[in-house]
């Protein structure tokens, strides 16, 4: 290797131009103008006396001009003085050669398209170029990194072909970037090296998210703390990345309450993005809508789509869960930008079907309550208590029963059996309705011992008892209503038995209590739903009161469950305790691969979530779905550049030259510029004329 090399050797072709002043001088001399002159006696005398000095000055000026041009051209060709040379062929790096760690970023932000190619391809090409530039005795260690590390050989090697093969085989994965462990591993590897010249090439997109686990603001110091002798360099990208991507997708009620029938997609931005983005709403493989959504940079953007009415509409879709649930599975897709991977967000929601409730007794207030939006989630049927025998109770999740009088023992037994098998029973009274013999019929079901006759005592205000289930309390928020305005004028005194939970009470009188019965639950309201007994049915809290009770009885959770996980996470589906274990389960990936899953330990676990999209899950005869999305926690879609970078940058189009200068040399460009300035001043001094 010559002691001086050039980073832009193409400019050396212009080196002959340095002779231009000399050639121009010769050309002009040979093309002298012929002019008459009176007499040359005097002129010859002057010429003889002056010319030697003038000619010396002239040649000196020509020399200075030639040198000026020469150093100018050299400056452009960027000479590098080699102070650390690669060892000759066969020399070991331990004897003073070069050890280089190449860190190749394979995170998904490297899929960003830069000048027609993904940044990863640029980085891959750069890695190959760096390997090519290394001397025969140089060693290198190539690692791809995202939040995980993968290396070609585990240690430094000079087997160039193996490293090249590893680099060529590498591909972008779907994981976020974390530079800290990669740098730690690189420094750790170099700490064992005895090479005199150690370097790390970080071939990344320099996005700030990769630096999140390195100390902010003290990057240089932190890196120097590893080993200040190790040289670090990165790639230079001459762009301002911009990206629009889909954040969270959720299901919401369009008007703030009632049924959740609207998809809301959060649109996030990075950099200076276009003011509009085309957005597509897909559901169950069908394109539902396409629209242009306004986008504001650095602001919270949200797009919404109201699902078609169910049933029969696209919002209903197929019903993999049968009567018990339905599935909303699809994706929100943005028009493709430079980073395509995060332009789609998949979602899967399992919606519970509306529980069916049977109301035995014709109560005006109940009918009115089930007509409201809040209770529209329930399908309520009303039946005369005397015709209860004709109803198939298995079709219902809960029974509201008020007609106790003269109920046959068989009917009561059917109801108890219904509750025992998991149904819900809500008992309340009709004024003057209950007799002692009726009470005895229900003794084993009731949550306590009731007084024989109703008490006529005015109870003002309801108080939530501490025994009320916490989850129910938070979810239904009865205390948000004015419970103190509720009055109860007649009620039966209840002595709760063991296992009974009192939910509402007033002046130490238990008014609403619940207890389990078999696999089911029983709730007792010790008053009636009649204005002569209480004003509760006329208060706003009444619907919430009903919703809470019925949700408890029917195990109904109005919150839809999102079946969505992030790339690389395991999908786990447990089944209810005591429920029958599924015999077989199968998962179909978005690309159509099918995986058999063995249900065990009370759950189904699936780990091969290495594709983005919707996975179909078949458990016995029931089909459901779950979505696998990119994990936004790493901020991988945010492409803002780390500023300042703690290392010098290698230009992509001049990588070989920059790498040589970085690794081996001391650039002489500034020296050339200094010489040019000096020669320029010298030329001015030589040609300066005294006025």
């Amino acid at each position, binding site marked *: 290797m010559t002691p001086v090399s050039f980073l832009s050797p193409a400019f050396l072709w212009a080196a002959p131009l340095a002779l231009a002043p000399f050639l121009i001088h010769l050309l*002009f*001399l040979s*093309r*002298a*103008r*012929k*002019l*008459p*002159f*009176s*007499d*040359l*006696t*005097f*002129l*010859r*005398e*002057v*010429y003889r*006396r*002056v*010319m030697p000095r*003038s*000619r010396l*000055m*002239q040649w000196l000026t020509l020399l200075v001009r030639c040198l000026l041009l020469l150093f100018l051209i050299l400056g452009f060709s960027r000479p590098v003085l080699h102070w650390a040379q690669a060892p000759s062929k066969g020399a070991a790096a331990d004897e003073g050669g070069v050890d280089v760690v190449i860190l190749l970023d394979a995170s998904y932000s490297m899929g960003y398209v830069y000048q027609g190619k993904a940044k990863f391809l640029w980085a891959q090409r750069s890695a190959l170029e760096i390997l090519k530039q290394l001397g025969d005795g140089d060693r290198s260690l190539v690692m791809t990194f995202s939040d995980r590390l993968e290396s070609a050989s585990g240690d430094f090697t000079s087997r160039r072909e193996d490293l090249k093969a590893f680099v060529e085989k590498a591909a972008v994965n779907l994981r976020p970037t974390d530079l800290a462990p990669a740098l730690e591993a690189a420094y750790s590897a170099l700490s064992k090296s005895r090479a005199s010249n150690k370097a790390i090439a970080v071939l990344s997109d320099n996005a700030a998210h990769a630096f999140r686990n390195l100390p902010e603001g003290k990057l240089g110091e932190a890196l120097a703390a590893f080993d200040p002798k190790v040289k670090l360099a990165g790639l230079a990208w001459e762009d301002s990345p911009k990206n629009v991507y889909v954040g969270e997708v959720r299901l919401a009620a369009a008007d703030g309450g009632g049924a959740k029938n609207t998809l809301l997609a959060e649109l996030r931005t990075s950099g200076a993005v276009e003011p509009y983005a085309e957005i597509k709403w897909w559901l169950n493989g069908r394109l539902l809508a396409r629209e242009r959504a306004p986008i504001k940079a650095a602001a919270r953007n949200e797009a919404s789509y109201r699902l078609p009415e169910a049933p029969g509409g696209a919002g209903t879709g197929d019903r993999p869960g049968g009567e018990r649930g339905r599935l909303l599975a699809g994706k929100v897709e943005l028009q493709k930008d430079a980073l395509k991977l995060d332009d789609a967000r998949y979602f899967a929601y399992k919606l519970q079907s509306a529980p069916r409730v049977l109301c035995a007794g014709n109560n005006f207030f109940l009918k009115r309550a089930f007509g409201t939006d809040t209770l529209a989630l329930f399908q309520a049927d009303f039946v005369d208590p005397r015709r209860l025998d004709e109803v198939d109770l298995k079709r219902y999740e809960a029974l509201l029963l008020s007609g106790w009088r003269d109920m046959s023992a068989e009917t009561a037994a059917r109801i108890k059996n219904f509750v025992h098998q998991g149904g819900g029973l809500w008992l309340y009274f009709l004024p003057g309705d209950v007799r002692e013999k009726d009470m005895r019929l229900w003794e084993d079901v009731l949550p306590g011992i009731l007084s024989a006759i109703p008490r006529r005592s005015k109870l003002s205000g309801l108080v939530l008892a501490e025994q009320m289930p916490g989850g129910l309390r938070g979810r239904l928020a009865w205390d948000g209503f004015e419970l103190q305005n509720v009055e109860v004028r007649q009620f039966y005194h209840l002595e709760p038995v063991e296992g009974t939970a009192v939910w509402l009470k007033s002046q130490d009188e238990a008014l609403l209590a619940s207890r389990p019965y078999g696999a089911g639950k029983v709730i007792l309201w010790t008053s009636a739903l009649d204005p002569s007994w209480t004003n509760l049915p006329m208060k706003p809290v009444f619907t919430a009161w009903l919703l809470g009770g019925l949700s408890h009885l029917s195990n109904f959770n109005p919150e839809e469950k999102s079946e969505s996980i992030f790339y690389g996470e395991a999908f786990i589906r447990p089944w209810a305790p005591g429920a029958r274990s599924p015999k077989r389960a199968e998962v179909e990936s978005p690309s159509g691969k099918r995986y058999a899953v063995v249900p065990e330990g009370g759950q189904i676990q699936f780990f091969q979530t290495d594709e983005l999209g919707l996975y179909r899950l078949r458990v016995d005869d029931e089909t459901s779905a779950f979505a696998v999305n990119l994990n936004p926690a790493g901020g991988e879609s945010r492409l803002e550049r780390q500023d300042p970078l703690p290392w010098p940058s290698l230009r992509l189009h001049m990588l070989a030259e920059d790498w040589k200068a970085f690794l081996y040399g001391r650039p002489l460009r500034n020296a050339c510029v200094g010489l040019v300035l000096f020669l320029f001043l010298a030329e001015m001094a030589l040609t300066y*004329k005294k006025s």
Partner: protein
Amino acid sequence: MRYLDPESLGKIKNLRFVPVRGLAEGAYSGMHRSAYKGSSQEFMEHREYVPGDEIKYIDWKVYARKERFFVRLYREEKNLRSYFLLDASGSMAYKSPRAARPAKFEYACRLAMGMAYLILRQTDAVGLGVFSDAPKLFLAPDNQMAQLERLDQALAGVVPQGKTDMEGGLAYYAQLLHRRSLAVVFSDLMGPAEKIQSVIRALKAHKHEVLVFHVLDPVERDFDFEGPVLFDPLEGGEALRCDAHLLKEAYRREFAELIKYYTASFHASEIGYATVYTDQPWESALKKALGKQ
């Protein structure tokens, strides 16, 4: 006339030429003092009467005091003989290629004609000698105005060419010139300065009044050339190739030294000397030169 037009005459008509510091020795009575005694208004001395003297010159006042006869003698006044010696070498044909100026020879001819007019107007005689490397033309002095016409015709027939040989030319004319004449030299004085200066001083040695008009083109002073030039001498000989830019500064300096040398040496020899450039009107140059005299 070719070299003298009425307009120019109008400009110089008020000038008067009084160049003589010494004594004139013309053939005719004139307005200039001579070394001889003769008839004029200027008293010279008394001399004792000798038989033969005219009685009208006896100074009776002296006789009354001394009782001896003395006659009054007067200084004779003679006219002036002027010789215009024109250099007609090849170098006098030079004129700047870039400006509409007359050649040096033409300029010298106009100067000579103007001066001849002034001299003839005061009845002095004017003659002409033209030389280059050898005498070319000689016109005997005459004090008639018709001489002006003859001078013009003679000059019109001269073409400047050949080498300058001041020594040969001026030495020849020095033999022809009457004593105590006025010699006016029109030349660019190209050649070895010491030699030229000694030749002109030789004229002075013959008791002539000498006046030198150093006629030059401004380019010869400024050397206003750039870049490589092949200088072709008008007097023949080998051309000189050089970078004019390199020579310019030195040439100007040396040229200024040369003018200084001529000025100082002619002044020391009581020789009138005037440098005239062809870019200034010859009438002005003449006026300025006569003013110096």
